[in-house]
């Protein structure tokens, strides 16, 4: 997939955006035919799948696929989502200890111009090894700056150990703003 710059809202990624999308418009009540939720179940006190806020003091921590509302200095903020990794060769009789992992990164809803650098993303595996994923070959580089009203999407790739890991975004020197937990699966 080529790196793209899209008009804001054209392709919302992240569960809140997904839920806001509405679907087919016929919010049918077929399940209501036989009843409502039982009274003993507590009323949800938290909205699940709300967007996590990440700051330098309290980086956002969530699972892959979820969006983080990242707060940068000088009143800037941006929504960042990392999805993946996607891996090839799933379900083969022989499963290697490492696999090619590809993530999709989406930045949107910037309040002011926000610099974009693929260098700001790094992955760490269960042994503490740090990986520097690179732009998938053939893609144009993402814009150096994300401007308000635009969306940038690009794919990063690295060969890394199978198992659990974290993808980190540190756009300000080495200060983390967001971390996404993931599992490299090839079974």
């Amino acid at each position, binding site marked *: 997939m080529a790196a793209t710059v899209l008009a804001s809202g054209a392709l919302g990624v992240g569960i809140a955006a997904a839920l806001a999308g509405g*679907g087919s418009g016929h*919010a049918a009540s077929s399940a209501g035919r036989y*009843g409502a939720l039982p*009274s003993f179940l507590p009323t949800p006190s938290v909205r699940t799948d709300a967007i996590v806020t990440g700051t330098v003091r309290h980086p956002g921590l969530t699972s*892959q*696929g979820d969006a983080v509302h990242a707060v940068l200095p000088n009143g800037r903020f941006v929504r960042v989502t990392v999805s993946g990794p996607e891996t090839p060769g799933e379900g083969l009789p022989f499963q290697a*200890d490492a696999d090619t992992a590809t993530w999709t990164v989406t930045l949107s809803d910037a309040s002011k111009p926000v610099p974009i650098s693929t260098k700001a993303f790094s992955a760490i595996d269960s042994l503490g090894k740090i*990986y520097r994923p690179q732009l998938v070959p053939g893609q144009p580089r993402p814009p150096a700056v994300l401007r308000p009203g635009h969306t940038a999407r690009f794919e990063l790739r690295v060969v890394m150990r199978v198992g659990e890991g974290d993808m980190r975004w540190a756009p300000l020197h080495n200060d983390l703003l967001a971390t996404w*937990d993931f599992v490299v699966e090839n079974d």
Partner: protein
Amino acid sequence: MQILRNGSATPTPRQPRRTLRRNRTALVLAGAAVLVGSTAAAMPAVASAAHGSPKNLTISSTGLKPGQVKHVWLIILENKSYDATFTGLNQNSYLWKTLPKQGVLLKNYYGTGHSSMDNYLSMVSGQAPEEDTQSDCSVENTNFSSNAGIVTKGGSLKNNPNYGQAASAANAAQPSGANAPNGANGCTYPKDVPTLFNQLDAAGKTWKGYAQDLGGAQAAGSSSFQADTVPGRDDAVCGGPGSTANNPDTDPTFLSSNLPSGVTSFTGAQPNDQYVAKHFPFPWFHSLTGGVTSGGTTPGLTTPAQGGSDCDTAHIANLDNPQTGLFHDLQKSSTTPAFSWVTPDNCSDAHDAICKGNNLSGSFTASGQPIYQTPTPDPETTTPKNFTGGLYASDLFLEYYIPMIEKSPAFKDGGLIDVTFDEGNPPFTYSGNSFNNANAYGPTLGDEPNATAGITADAAGQNINGHNVHTEPTGPNSTLGTDTKGDQLYPGPGNNSFIDRPPVCTSTSPNVPSDCVPGIVRGGSGTSPGTRTDGVAGNSSSSFIEDKSILADDTGRQVTDTVDSPDPLPASTFVGAVTDTGPDFPTTNTGQVTNGSFQLVDQSGTPVTPTGPVSSITLSAEGDPGNLAPGQTADPLWDATHPTPGGGDTGSVLISPLIRPGSVSKTFYNHYSWLATMEDIFQVSNGHDHTALPAGTVSGGLDGQGHLGYAAQPGLAPFGPDVFNNAGHGGYAASSSHRSGGAAWLPESTGGGIAALVAAGLPIWFRRGRRSTASRPVPAT
């Protein structure tokens, strides 16, 4: 494990220290004065309600009265550890934030092996893992074992721990008599290995297996349901892989070669069909599928309560089928099966990080409510907003289907929803809480890997005779034998998935080398690294060496320099703390992006400064920490003695009118405990099928109490009053008017049932007063 200087390795107790959490309820104990707390509630069976027991007696030690649970829905997800799922990594998840507040969170629920498929089969049959099912039947679906291969020696589990297990025909060719490799054993169990579903048949209980995408996905925008959109992929009997012609008797399906047209994978999802048979237990038992001979087909072991066969459309269904699917069946209690098995597809079960097909993200309103299409919900007909998988996708699935179940009349009247996982992937830092590493930008001392912590990911857990234990039986196929030195020879159910084991000795004469184990079956373990030479940069001004290849687990390896002259490194120089800097973007296609560095230290950890430029170093080979050969240094992941007996802690959530919202249990349970619980809930021992099998009977199980396989382990605790903690007074009323403000406790009940319980010597629970638990937070760890 404690490594001794003399080279021997001495196991040390690994059982974690756990704090008993007392339930704030009054406990009346009759008979023996046995203390029962919320975590000690898993007692050995003290009574059985089998065979026409009085109404108020509890069933075994579940604390439930016969018939209190009328309907069960089991929803099984994939490959997440408790640490990754329930301790905060998923800040916003429905699974972590909402569902435990509706029911009970089992903090110590364990898988029974690695990898996936063996767990599903253990859950429904009590059969332990074997290598082909541990490898997800990735080669060919041939028959596993035979009726004659079922272990009968000893006559009971008390006399023979393998009693009632099907032994692989390939074991005989193995030096150990077990542990035949993947592809040599087969995948489908013989007819005389019964399952929970055969027991339900014989007990007159209804059941159904629902699988999302069974037969293929529904196309976005489609207006009518199609039952078989990908012919030849899921069409073998009971949802087995292959075509209708495929069967393990006469036409086995090849899982990874000779794929038919239109099928890109049987064991992984494809865009138009994300169902994978390895996550659906039904096709893997001849007791359900029956058999095929040259003369035709033979029936399964039992006949369903409503007639037909176990693999017909009344028992095996696509989840969204408007005629036989979940929503159709939920309309009335009378149309809802007593037991419902729900297998989400390989996207919705959190397996795939990026989904091949629909993840249901287009199936919610702007306010987050699921869109239930009229007349039948079919979320795949909506266009997904994205293809994100993992726990994001499983949340979408759960948010769609769990409220559908909770609104049904069957749930409100003795319903029980169980959301669980098959096995646990290791927590990220091996520290017990993945959250710990969230803000670390590089390896720290706290992140250092070590073998003992790594093995935790392969841990087992269950409760035997009232004690939480980290062991479980392995069965005759995937054993845990050791040699005379105590070194592990076989990987066991945990399959050495997350540690390094010694290599196999290539020569044992005249002496066995100290750094290898003759005949070891290494399973999924990694290999201790050999020597490695890195191009580096260092000089006499600093003790730090820039090394783009340095890893966190290289710490402790000896460093030599055979290139630079004169040798700038003193003898006995080692890798100290490892850090990574950068990123460093290469200018050539052979460059590396990691710009790591480490500090040179001596044997006592004191920094060492080179005497001149350093351009190349050689790291020592790693080896057995207790038997290091000259020049080797310790492999921090190497372990020769600790077993890998299980599938790791996954956690589990159960919701029911018979369970207090927001409660927690720390008792150890596993898939065998789950099977015993289901058998007790539905009182399968009251069934009519007592025809002798090679081991036990369908209705009586192996122990005469209705427990199959390792669910019949003497003293194994099913889910107890720590789980069904609101059963003593009948559970919550079946009101449908949703109240805000949380749980509505029923008045304390001290009715006539107590007298019967006291007389039987059973624990009885009642509440002291009115208390809402709806807002009680679920502990984060």
